[in-house]
């Protein structure tokens, strides 16, 4: 085994890991605030990819510009989903909440199948093939750009949650709904905002990976499951846990693909997932709280 192969795999893993982190941060935010496990998370990523694809195909704009379109669009979409679909079941039994998001995932996936057709597409822009060579390893430009942009988004969200008024309100809602309500926070609106931000994370991640990841209506499922793995690894509701978990899973999958067939690499992350759930259900970092921690 050549050491440069391992190095290359690690680099690739770290690069895709940034994207995993962004998707997982969105999922963990939604869970932390409204205790909803969003099974449709990957489907929003898929929609983000289609947005980038069509913006590029029809308007000729770079997918990195469509990120800017993504943010308001997906925030509004998320807010609508929360208000219309999720709110009515918030007080209901947990399995109904899960079933609702599963149904939403089915709906979105098949709507994509209906309107965008099952063709596997690829978005290719000029920079898709660029890469930097460092020593014996190659760093592909679109992956690097996606990773850097994803980390930038995560940091921006982190400061939003940590230092702004709305961030404080979101954290308050997640820690104690009644308390936040009594303190005069419009809890319903905060839920909508949090869901919107969570969905926007997935949508942005979709737009960012569009230049190098094949796109089909079924792309989302893999990311939903991966995001679960990452979130559980970091501890559900743990913001920084999701950030590190993303990189960890990215590297694990990438290294595993050297030793076993690439199509089996997910078995490794699922195995890891089961072990973590069984033996460290509070996540690798052993947090005890259930709410969103930033």
């Amino acid at each position, binding site marked *: 085994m050549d050491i440069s192969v391992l190095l290359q795999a690690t680099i690739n893993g770290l690069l895709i890991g940034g994207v995993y982190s962004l998707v997982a941060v969105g999922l963990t935010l939604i869970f932390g605030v409204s205790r909803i496990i969003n099974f449709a998370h990957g489907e929003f990523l898929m929609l983000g990819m289609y947005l980038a694809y069509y913006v590029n195909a029809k308007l000729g704009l770079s997918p990195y510009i469509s990120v800017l379109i993504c943010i308001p669009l997906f925030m509004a979409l998320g807010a609508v989903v929360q208000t219309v679909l999720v709110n009515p079941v918030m007080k209901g039994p947990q399995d109904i909440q899960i079933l609702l998001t*599963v149904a939403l995932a089915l709906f979105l996936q098949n709507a994509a199948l209906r309107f965008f057709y099952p063709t596997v597409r690829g978005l290719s822009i000029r920079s898709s093939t660029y890469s930097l060579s460092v020593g014996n390893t190659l760093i592909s430009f679109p992956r690097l750009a996606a990773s850097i942009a994803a980390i930038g988004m995560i940091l921006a969200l982190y400061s939003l949650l940590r230092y702004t008024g709305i961030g404080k309100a979101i954290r308050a809602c997640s820690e104690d709904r009644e308390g936040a309500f009594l303190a005069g926070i419009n809890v319903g609106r905060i839920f909508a905002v949090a869901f919107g931000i969570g969905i926007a994370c997935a949508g942005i991640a979709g737009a960012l990976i569009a230049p190098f990841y094949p796109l089909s209506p079924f792309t989302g499922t893999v990311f939903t499951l991966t995001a679960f793995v990452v979130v559980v690894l970091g501890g559900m509701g743990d913001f920084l846990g999701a950030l590190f978990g993303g990189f960890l899973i990215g590297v694990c999958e990438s290294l595993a693909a050297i030793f076993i067939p690439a199509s089996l690499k997910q078995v490794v992350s699922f195995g890891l997932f089961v072990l973590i759930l*069984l033996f460290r259900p509070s996540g690798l970092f052993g947090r005890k709280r259930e709410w969103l921690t930033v």
Partner: protein
Amino acid sequence: MSGSPFRLSGPGAIGYVGWGILVLAACLSLVVPFLLSPYVLHLIILVLLYAYLSQCWNIVGGYAGQLSLGHALFFGTGAYTSTLLFLHYSVTPWAGMLIGACCAATLGLAIGFLCFRYGLKGPYFALVTIAFAEMARLVALNVTVLGGASGLQIPLHEGAGAAVFQLSNLSAYYVIYGMTILSVLIVNAMRHNSIGYFLLAIREDELGAEAVGVNPRKYKLVSLVASAFLTALGGTFYAQYYLFLEPNSSLGIGVSITFAVNAIIGGRGTILGPILGSLLLTLSGEFTRSLVTYGGAGVHMMIFGAILMFTCIFLPEGMVPTIAKRLNPKRTC
């Protein structure tokens, strides 16, 4: 019982009317298939198959209250085990069925032991069951003996007791019919036995149940193993009836979701629920599938997803408990 804090009547009671309907339907359905066209009979077989499978799911998902979204693992295990035995050793599907069911029960035992030993509940349990089923699907996709992505074709075979499943819809109908009746009888017996009450107690308040001396870990495990065993029997029927087995349609997450959805929409923790759910969803599924020619691929599942969301929001308890409440508002179920 109105106003009583105890839920002895429980949401599972179906009452005399319910039993009357069931018995009547049972008698009718022994005769009717002779009169039906093959396509209608095929539809009825599908309804019965999914009613059976959802009833099996109901034991653990409805009565024990443990949301499993990985029952495809047991279904697929049953299907693959009996099919491989049939293909390579000409073992009759009847024996393969039982062997597959034992394998699935063992898997259920292992998974249940791990999950309940470490206290996984609610969404965490659901996620672990998904993870196990997905691992099995990925392995099946990549292992040549299991047919890989192209799947396994099951040849027609007159001997080895397979003809019952394969050669005529009519005999297959009676097999799945018997299995469905069996599942109803088992679930009913369970409900009126101490174990049924223990499971209800665990579902409603696990700590409380433990405090009065019920061992939640043990009974949840029993329910999962029983459910896995029965689900696997359905897997063998599916493989022998369709004569084709492929990872995504036997181990995929969509399969697990179908079982759960039928039971939840019909009313989880009720005997009639899974049957009603399967009847409505399978038939409406077949109907909307026929719309595909007008609407294009995907329309059928889009409608399904929309119906599902609608039900979650407006009928969170499922149809049977909601109807029961309407008919008899005094009863505390």
